[in-house]
């Protein structure tokens, strides 16, 4: 029963402002896809277009290959969880959950049975006779999800459903949600501005910025092969180190110089540089360590700050040229601020981006 969703070259303008620009997204049946990007990049707008709450300025929404752009929310059979949850304040939780069925004129006993079932599923069985205002944020969120899944839907849309929860609850709920939607097998489009949510929950991620789709793919694909510098810095925590590097050569071998760092390149990397004299260099923090890397490059650095995470630590280095670079260590290393020495990295692990277009090389 899972459905195939395609957004075909969607553009949405509000007056002269373009909120979504030429977005094409394909979501396979039953896939859990996450739309991620900074606040204001047009995620909610795109979701509203899928839900028929906004009409696109151009482009088409297709479900199972059928163009549904002109159909209403009702006809598209879409379910949605709103960022503010948007529960009906005057109805009890029981009535809130049963509302979509009431609209579809489902008979009362059947409705009651489904409400019970879904209430158990999202663990709000004991709250059925309360009003939304008597519930905590986490409980309201469960009601909103329950209301979205109580009837079969073609696509389920979730707009930052976790953003109103506290940090501990968020981590727990995101695992629950992933399991729940995995079991239901509904095609799901999930929106978040939090890259860690996107990485942990998704089958596929669509990264957006300023209304434009930057890259789509599996979480690890995005992490390992970011299409541009924005995706590289947005996905992953702590952020990738990005620095401007000059292309140089020494003894017939291509080199990159960025601040205190001198990095020999292999032939493949040198070929990708082409005739560029400057390039943006990206290095993941976990690629930089105080342990010697065989065949690696090193830079002289002083540790300025160590952020302990318990199972790992984020290490802030400063090079002799005053440049900052962030590395990461597993915690068995006894490290502390003030340490001076060599930090190591494997030249094969670096990312190269065109300085002008920011595209990956």
């Amino acid at each position, binding site marked *: 029963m899972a459905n195939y969703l395609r957004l075909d070259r969607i553009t949405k303008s509000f007056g002269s402002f373009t909120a979504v620009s030429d977005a094409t997204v394909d979501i396979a049946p039953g896939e859990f896809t996450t739309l991620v990007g900074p606040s204001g990049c047009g995620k909610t707008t795109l979701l509203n277009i899928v839900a028929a709450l906004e009409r696109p300025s151009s482009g088409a929404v297709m479900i199972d290959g059928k163009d549904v752009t002109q159909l209403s929310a009702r006809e598209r059979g879409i379910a949605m969880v709103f960022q503010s949850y948007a529960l009906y304040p005057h*109805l009890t939780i029981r009535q809130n959950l049963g509302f979509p069925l009431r609209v579809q004129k489902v008979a009362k006993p059947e409705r009651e049975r489904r409400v019970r079932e879904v209430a158990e599923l999202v663990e709000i069985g004991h709250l059925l006779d309360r009003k939304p205002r008597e519930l905590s944020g986490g409980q309201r969120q469960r009601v909103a999800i329950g209301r979205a899944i109580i009837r079969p839907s073609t696509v389920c849309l979730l707009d930052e459903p976790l953003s109103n929860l506290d940090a501990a609850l968020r981590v727990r709920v995101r695992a629950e949600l992933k399991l729940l939607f995995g079991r239901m097998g509904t095609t799901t489009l999930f929106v978040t501005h939090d890259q860690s949510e996107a990485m942990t929950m998704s089958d596929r991620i669509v990264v957006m910025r300023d209304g434009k789709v930057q890259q789509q793919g599996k979480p690890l694909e995005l992490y390992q092969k970011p299409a541009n510098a924005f995706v590289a810095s947005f996905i992953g925590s702590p952020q990738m180190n990005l620095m401007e590097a000059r292309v140089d050569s020494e003894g017939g071998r291509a080199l990159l110089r960025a601040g205190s760092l001198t990095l020999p390149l292999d032939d493949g990397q040198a070929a990708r540089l082409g005739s560029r004299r400057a390039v943006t260099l990206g290095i993941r923090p976990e690629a930089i360590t105080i342990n010697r890397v065989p065949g690696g490059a090193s830079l002289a650095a002083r540790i300025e700050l160590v952020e302990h995470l318990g199972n790992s630590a984020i290490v802030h280095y400063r090079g002799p040229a005053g440049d900052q670079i962030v590395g990461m260590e597993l915690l068995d290393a006894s490290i502390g601020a003030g340490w001076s020495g060599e930090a190591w990295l494997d030249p094969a692990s670096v990312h190269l981006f065109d300085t002008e277009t920011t595209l990956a090389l």
Partner: protein
Amino acid sequence: MTDTTAPLAAPAPAPPVRTRLETLALYVCLFVLLAVIIFPIYWLVLNSLKFQRDFFTNPPVYFPPELTLGHWGEAMGNPLNQRYMLNTAVVAVISTFTATAAGTLCAYVLARIRMRWRLNGILLFAILICRLFPPVSLAIPYYLLMRQFGLLDTQAALVIAYTGLALPFVTWMMLTFFQDLPKEVERAAMVDGCTVVQRFLWVVLPMSVPAMAVSATFVFIAVWNELLYAITLTTLNAKTIPVAIASFVGDNALAWGPMSALSVASFVPVLLLALAAQRYLIRGLTFGAVKG
């Protein structure tokens, strides 16, 4: 032990104690304010209970030794006054209901449905214009209109006039309310499959009850006490209580007692309504719809 164990934070300073003088001044102010507000009402109630002989004494008797229910009997026992009371109730209830229902619908359409040719803005402006006219300027046209339709001195004439007058007010109030109503709840209703009508009846209307109750209360009070149109459009059969009260003045002597009794009696329903609507005036139902 030395100073190192000093408490981390000093105890919070005690709240400033209000001096006796300040307290006294406060109570005097309150008393004066209350007297200004309460005295006319007290005097009215007292007048309705005084014996005839106590009305024109000099100096006036503020606390008469004896009271009577005679004026009340006279005012309320009069079948004409009973009829006027009924007229007022019928007219007020029907026009309040009609104006609130129609005004709410108007406001919802203006707030949520974008019409062609900038009709929303034009209609809104037209409504505002209606509210700018002094009511007296419309009384004569209404009189002519009702005479044309043969409706003079009927309850229908008053209902039509009052509904027409209250409609812009209700529309304006409800429009503000709808514009502030979080859109996401209605969007949820759309996603859940509601048609426009279902959305309005099942979601918007229940959420609007408090705002409608407040508008209705204002309309009801205004209509209940309305004198100008009632005097213009009615002569005998459809007369309302304010007209009856006003007509005590004039003829021969002024019947202070019955007039006061009737005034107090007509005040009671309004007071009850205000008390009943108080709940809505204080509490908003939309709380809890979105993250609160």
